[in-house]
């Protein structure tokens, strides 16, 4: 890869900003665009299913996990038991064990407090950015935790905004914002493939295929976790770094 491309990549994640807190905040901007529509959709759905504003905001503040929150709403609506909802949440979010474990080799010099803060607010989006930045050598805890904090506040605010907008936006898909989330995953995936080579491409193709197969088979809550395990293993077995 040429020098020019490296410079562009650094620019894309705000590497040039010297102040770590601002640098982290700046990095969050493109991902905000990706997940704020999801947060608003969550708020909208919660309002339509009859949750109170405090329940809606409380779930975002405490649970802080998009897919699980949307799933919990539909399960609550369907009359599922507490144990079923909590169990499904655990299965869906178990992928964070893999994410946290894959970040950990780069955090040898971090304090326990910094590690706990990084992990406690870990999301798919922040993980992807951390993964790219740590690999590029920026392991400043202030930048990473600042990014997490911005995402945390924005996620909760988006849920509340969606709740209050209620039925004002009738067809959000007409504005293209329902594609913001997949577009964000595409952007994040491409920056990972660029730096990690052929094994990463195999990992991605296999992970995607297994995940789709599991969703089709009706095992949606297992799709991401098992797709990640299968993809990483396939990339490990087939590709040489």
């Amino acid at each position, binding site marked *: 890869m040429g020098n020019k491309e490296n410079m562009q990549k650094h620019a894309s994640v705000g590497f040039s900003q010297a102040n770590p807190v601002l640098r982290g905040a700046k990095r969050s901007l493109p991902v905000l665009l990706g997940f704020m529509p999801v947060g608003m959709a969550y708020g909208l759905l919660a309002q339509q299913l009859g949750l109170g504003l405090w329940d809606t905001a409380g779930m975002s503040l405490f649970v802080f996990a998009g897919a699980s929150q949307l799933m919990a709403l539909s399960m609550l609506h369907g009359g599922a038991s507490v144990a079923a*909802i909590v169990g499904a949440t655990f299965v869906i979010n178990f*992928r964070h064990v893999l994410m946290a474990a894959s970040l950990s080799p780069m955090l040898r010099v971090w304090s326990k407090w910094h590690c706990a803060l990084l*992990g406690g607010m870990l999301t798919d989006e922040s993980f992807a950015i951390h993964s790219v930045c740590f690999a590029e050598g920026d392991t400043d805890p202030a930048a990473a935790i600042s990014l997490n904090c911005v995402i945390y506040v924005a996620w909760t605010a988006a849920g509340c905004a969606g709740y209050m907008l209620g039925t004002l936006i009738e067809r959000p898909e007409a504005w293209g914002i329902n594609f913001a989330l997949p577009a964000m995953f*595409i952007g994040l*995936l491409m*920056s990972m493939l660029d730096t990690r080579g052929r094994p990463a491409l195999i990992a991605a193709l296999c992970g995607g295929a297994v995940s789709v197969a599991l969703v089709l088979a009706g095992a949606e809550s297992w799709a991401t976790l098992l797709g990640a395990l299968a*993809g990483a293993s396939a990339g490990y077995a087939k590709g040489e770094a």
Partner: protein
Amino acid sequence: MSVSKTWVVIIGMTLATLLPRVIPLLLLPGRRMPRGIERWLSLVAPAIMAALLAPELLLVRDTLEGPAFSLFNLNILAAVPTFWVAWKTKSLFGAVATGIAASALLRLAL
């Protein structure tokens, strides 16, 4: 649904999401891992991104309904310029903006 049940669910979900996030980061850093495991872990990130993305692109689904398979849906069409821009520019912002614009334009056009 009762308010108390909602909050019992929220507290249970908080534990179910917090523990998998925090425990590995409290236990693993500082420990020497075999190189093979570190290489496997470096492939987790692209595998997870693809596992999140692929169903979003290929299986159009309603939040409350089951999956419905449809090839040549708008998501797949909008993904083409998004992949291209993401690969060429390596800009996350560019990818998201392209995706949103492509999706909106396709919906207008079709």
